[in-house]
């Protein structure tokens, strides 16, 4: 028995080592190295200049720069827009597709397609749609006599253009989670509620939503983290512009590190971003625990 267990443990190790090695090389080591860099001045254009220790200077620079604050505001604004729309749309469509009707499985699969496309491709698709003169979107708008919208060239519209593309891609994720959560609910409480004579809306609001709330919180949390890291679509559509209208946090980090070659500042910004995500996670687990205690 003991022999079997130690042998099992060795097998565990054999299976675990590659994963741990990859994790170490691609996540843990870069993170430690970034932590190291965030306290140094390191100009990528001058690789032979020694990386001088600068203390908190990089952090101080970021946290006092209005540019960084602006990116934070843009990031959160984008997060709030995409999250709220994805929640409402995703839950709505999820409820509809959770109905047990013939062909619904096919509908659900079709609706998942946006999610399966690589974000860069999504960006390109929407780039074509948004194209000022030749884009389909403005063409369709012109058909209903709405004048052309400067989707990605106006500072007010650009953030919406990005939000729409992200919403298009990720609403199916919320939809799928919602439909799955609804399917996992037992049908009897619904029958009981029907016999009692509660309206569909009341049943949805008082029976369905509270029961799938933990799932919704998880979905929102995953979307929040992704929205916080949103990069590819923006890179393709606006590259943070026009001006800095859509410069989000990850765009800022990219620009500091690889456009201005200030690796130290970029690394420090990454750590600030990490700190914000950690706060988000903590908040999420708190609220999840609270909603599960109630069930």
């Amino acid at each position, binding site marked *: 028995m003991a022999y079997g267990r130690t042998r099992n443990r060795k097998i565990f190790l054999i299976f675990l080592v590659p994963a741990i090695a990859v994790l170490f090389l691609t996540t843990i080591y870069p993170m430690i190295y970034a932590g190291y860099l965030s306290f140094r001045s390191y100009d990528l254009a001058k690789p032979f200049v020694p990386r001088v220790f600068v203390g908190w200077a990089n952090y101080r620079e970021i946290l006092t720069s209005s540019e960084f604050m602006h990116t934070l505001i843009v990031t959160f604004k984008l997060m709030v827009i995409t999250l709220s729309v994805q929640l409402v749309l995703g839950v709505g469509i999820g409820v509809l597709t959770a109905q047990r009707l013939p062909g619904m499985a096919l509908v659900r699969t079709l609706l998942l397609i946006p999610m399966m496309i690589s974000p860069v491709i999504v960006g390109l698709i929407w780039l074509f749609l948004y194209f000022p003169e030749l884009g389909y979107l403005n063409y369709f708008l012109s058909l209903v006599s709405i004048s052309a919208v400067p989707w990605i060239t106006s500072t007010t519209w650009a953030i919406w253009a990005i939000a729409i593309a992200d919403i298009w891609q990720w609403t199916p994720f919320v939809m799928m989670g919602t439909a799955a959560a609804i399917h996992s609910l*037992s049908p*009897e*409480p619904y*029958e*009981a*509620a*029907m*016999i*009692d*004579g*509660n*309206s569909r809306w*009341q049943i949805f609001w*008082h*029976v369905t939503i*509270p*029961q799938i*709330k933990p799932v919704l919180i998880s979905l929102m949390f995953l979307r929040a983290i992704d929205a916080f890291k949103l990069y590819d679509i923006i890179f393709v559509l606006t590259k943070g512009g026009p001006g800095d209208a859509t410069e989000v946090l990850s765009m800022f980090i990219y620009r500091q590190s690889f456009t201005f070659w200030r690796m130290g500042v970029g690394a420090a910004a990454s750590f600030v971003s990490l700190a914000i995500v950690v706060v988000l996670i903590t908040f999420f687990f708190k609220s999840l625990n609270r909603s599960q205690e*109630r*069930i």
Partner: protein
Amino acid sequence: MSAIILRNLVKRYEADMAVHDINLNVEAGEFVVLLGPSGCGKTTTLRMVAGLEDVSEGEIYIGGELANDLAPKDRGIAMVFQNYALYPHMTVRQNMEFALRPLRLDRAEVNRRITETAEILGLDEYLARRPSQLSGGQRQRVAMGRAMVRTPEVFLFDEPLSNLDAKLRTKVRWEIGYLHRRLGMTTLYVTHDQTEAMTLADKIVIMRQGRIEQVGTPEEVFVRPRNTFVATFIGTPAMNLVPAVSADANLHAKDFSLPMPQKFRNHVPEGLEVLIGIRPSNINLADSGPANVFAASVRGIEYLGTDALLDLRVGSEELVAEIPAILRPEVDAQIHVSFDMQSLQLFDAKTGQSLESI
């Protein structure tokens, strides 16, 4: 309280008949149990009465009104489900409140009803708890409470005790019986457990394969089963059925003969192949000697405390007997048994129908 009338009720799933032409009257205030093995159509019948399943053919009347096309909420019914169907995120009080919501009662009336119901069911202390903090028995009482607060005309129970352990089952069974005597609501109750049916019902409806086999009081279905299905379904252990042929006012089984019991003498024809139904409790230990006493060997004994079950061989015939445990013989003992002749049942071996009062 409303009566329920089922007229030629049929439920078809594509080609399958789940319920075949059911006719049933449930009088106002009556407690009727639909009893049968799983898949016999009893739950489908109940769900049609509730309005949770469409009726394929036939009519359902509740309180004199044709209910086929009424929405569940308009049928004046309340239903208690096997797995309680409580709203898991709501407290006991909120569960009851949500059931009352469509009635748009004022606050005071809602509170009065909940307090009263909680008192009847002994749920006062648990009103602030959620279902997950309650035992199975308590949850089922909450489910009954949620049904009761609406003061419905008709109560429907779908195997309400099946998820409870044996001890609780007895307790909640007593409670349901007590509630029915106290509130007198019309009740339709589905179960596969004959003990529940025997103890609770005013009238038992025994179903098999979508058809009604017999309707009667618990005593009627036990004492005068209409066919071998009912005879062996009701009563534990099941009734013994011994093949025999009637001749010369006697019943000749393979290895023994019995005189034809008085009540069958005039109308069971000569030479008819029959099944003799003998309840295990109607087999008694006897001294050897007198007429109608048979030698038997004891193949096995199950000691049940008060009683004991004997696995007997009378000739080549296998019989189960139930005797007071204190009288039980040893395994492999050779004993003598007699039968309570007036309790014997006779069935036509071909049709399985009872031969009583043809």
